[in-house]
């Protein structure tokens, strides 16, 4: 009999696929439920993971989670790649110094506050100063990392755009590098303090430099190659196979070479977007369209991995101090960093709220620490970090949503397709569009047509019900005989409306129908039963309206940057 644990049916692929199916299917359902409750979908994925994972039903056990590891690496790579795509050189030119200052401040803020807090708790409980200092350093370093995946998923879900969003994209990805560097220093010092050291300080640093710089080199070189390939090989599917295949290769190389895969994928994305902004735009769209099930699987397995065991009371205090210290340190550091960098007010006020999520890198470093400091230190670190991750993963995404909402950046990064999806026909119908009663004489019809720029004129009866339409092409037929226009009326020269749409129908349905029938317009009626005319929608006018809305939102996103430092405000 098959079970979910792959080990019980060696060689069979069904269990892994069953786990994948379970995770994606129920994760998606969970996300929909949470979206209805106005909670970010990522919390839904993680909660489903909690239910089916180690803390819940145990359907996805440790072995199943291990089997999913390649998918998770790939998901992290996709996230890194898409974050890289946000890092245009003009963003760096504009915000480069701000990135550096805020990153340093928020990372160091968490490091210091968590380090001191956890060190004091351990000293009070254990009475061992050197152990307290060593663990304080390790906890501090681990706490400085932020999980980019859960954070940016919220930004994407709510179509955020603006200065706060730009900062979050850049910094949540870059602070993994800071965390790795801090961990390198902290673990070397801790080894010396506790006398468990096996490697030199320089060696540890060399390894971290290799992990980060090697990943950057790998990403940049592979970015140049991918750009070349996309230029040379034109593919009808937008290059999906090529891009996904290349990304998997780069991620696989990073893993094989022991480099940071997120940084490698981010460097790949950043290189591509800076080498060919236009061509790469479609590459990022292709990956985005492909990415959703991978994200779902990734976050469900994050939830499934979380485990809250029975901890002694003092460990709960440690978890509390770690979590609160990390929150205070990140928020305080972000605030002071933003002030130091003279960042926009929205960054000063809300950036700290976007840094709570904690996952892969923190847990990974905790595991690394537990293998390096075997025994009590290792166990305390693992239990504290995983338990705190449990809370942070659930708390982080709603805080990001709150921050971008307060900063006014939700819904500003929209495309025409997004706007079409979120509107109904009533939102774009032209109610002022001229129409004719069926008895309107031709003289009046010509006068109105001469004075307006519509391409279609609905014809209605005395009860305002739609009976047909007059088009400019159709009207030409009325010139066939001399003087005909003197005795024809609207009902004589109208054509049957090719289709109609109800006011409450989704705009997407209207656009699809016009596209399928090659129509430039659709008369809009009150409902399918009530054929009274509500107005007309014309493709060109809808597109113009949507373009104006996109432009307005992008301008609003630019305005979130506030006045430039030193700008003269209020000259009157």
């Amino acid at each position, binding site marked *: 009999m098959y079970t979910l644990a792959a080990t019980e049916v060696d060689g069979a692929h069904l269990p892994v696929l069953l786990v994948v199916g379970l995770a994606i299917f129920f994760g998606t359902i969970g996300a929909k439920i949470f979206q209805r409750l106005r909670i970010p979908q990522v919390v839904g994925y993680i909660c489903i993971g909690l239910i089916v994972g180690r803390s819940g039903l145990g359907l996805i056990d440790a072995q199943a989670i291990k089997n999913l590891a390649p998918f998770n690496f790939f998901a992290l790579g996709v996230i890194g790649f898409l974050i890289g795509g946000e890092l245009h050189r003009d963003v760096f030119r504009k915000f480069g110094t701000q990135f550096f200052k805020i990153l340093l401040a928020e990372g160091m803020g968490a490091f210091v506050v968590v380090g001191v807090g956890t060190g004091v708790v351990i000293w009070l409980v254990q009475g061992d100063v050197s152990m307290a200092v060593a663990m304080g350093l390790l906890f501090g370093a681990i706490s400085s990392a932020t999980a980019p995946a859960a954070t940016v998923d919220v930004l994407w879900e709510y179509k955020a755009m603006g200065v706060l969003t730009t900062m979050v994209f850049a910094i949540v990805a870059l602070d993994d590098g800071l965390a790795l560097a801090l961990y390198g220093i902290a673990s070397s010092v801790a080894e010396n303090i506790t006398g468990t050291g096996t490697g030199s300080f320089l060696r540890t640093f060399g390894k971290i430099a290799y992990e980060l710089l090697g990943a950057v080199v790998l990403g940049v070189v592979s970015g140049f190659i991918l750009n070349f390939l996309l230029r040379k090989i034109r593919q009808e599917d937008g290059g999906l196979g090529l891009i996904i295949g290349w990304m998997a290769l780069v991620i696989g190389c990073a893993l094989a070479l022991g480099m940071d895969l997120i940084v490698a994928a981010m460097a790949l994305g950043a290189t591509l977007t800076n080498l060919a902004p236009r061509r790469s735009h479609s590459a990022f769209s292709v990956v985005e369209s492909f990415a959703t099930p991978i994200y779902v699987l990734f976050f469900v397995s994050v939830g499934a991995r979380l485990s809250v065991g029975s901890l002694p009371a003092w460990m709960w205090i440690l978890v509390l101090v770690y979590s609160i210290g990390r929150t205070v340190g990140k928020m305080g550091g972000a605030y002071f960093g933003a002030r130091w960098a003279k960042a926009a007010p929205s960054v000063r006020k809300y950036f700290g709220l976007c840094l709570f999520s904690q996952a892969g890198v923190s847990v990974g470093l905790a595991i690394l620490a537990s293998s390096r400091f075997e025994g009590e230190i290792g166990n305390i670190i693992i239990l504290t970090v995983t338990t705190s991750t449990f809370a942070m993963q659930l708390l982080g995404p709603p805080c990001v949503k709150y921050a971008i909402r307060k900063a006014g950046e939700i819904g500003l990064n929209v495309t025409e397709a997004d706007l079409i999806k979120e509107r109904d026909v009533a939102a774009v119908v032209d109610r002022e569009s001229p129409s004719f009663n069926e008895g309107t004489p031709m003289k009046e019809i010509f006068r109105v047509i001469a004075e307006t720029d519509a391409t279609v004129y609905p014809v209605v009866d005395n009860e305002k019900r739609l009976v047909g339409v007059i088009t400019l092409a*159709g009207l030409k037929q009325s010139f066939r*005989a001399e003087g005909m226009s003197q*005795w024809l*009326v609207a009902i*004589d020269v109208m*054509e049957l409306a090719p289709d109609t749409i109800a006011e409450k129908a989704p705009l997407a349905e209207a656009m699809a129908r016009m596209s399928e029938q090659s129509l430039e317009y659709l008369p809009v009626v009150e409902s399918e039963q009530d054929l009274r005319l509500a107005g007309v929608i014309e493709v060109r006018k809808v597109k113009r309206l949507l373009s104006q809305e996109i432009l307005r939102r992008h301008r609003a996103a630019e305005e979130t940057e506030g006045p430039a430092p030193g700008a003269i405000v209020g000259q009157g």
Partner: protein
Amino acid sequence: MSLANYLKPGQVKILVGKTKAEVLEELIALAGKCFPGVDRDVLSEAIAHRESLMSTGIGQGLAVPHARLDGVTEPMVVVGISKGGVAGYESLDGSGVHVVLLIVAGKGQHEPYLRLLATAVNVLKDPAVRQDIINCSAAEQAYAMLTRM
């Protein structure tokens, strides 16, 4: 394009009625007889509706009552001739109506419908031709003249 494309011998008649209502009823009955697919009541209602919007007495002794109906697949016409003229047709130029062409087409037949209307008007725009047709004493004679042009 000529009326020969649309007319058959039985589709022309010398009118008996004297008033607009009588004449229209006569021609609707003829259309019902000539075109079994056309429902007389529906046609009568459609013609009355069109006349309520604007009279189809287009001047120079001509009237072209017309309507578009569901289920009609080809444009069709019947012609009535009134030697003494039809009373109360409210012609655009105030003159009496002597030749009435009742035209029916399908709802979706925008172009053929207007083409037939234009053909009818073009055929009868010459006053001499019009007078010759009014002077015809038999429907067959009028049919021959209408389809010759």
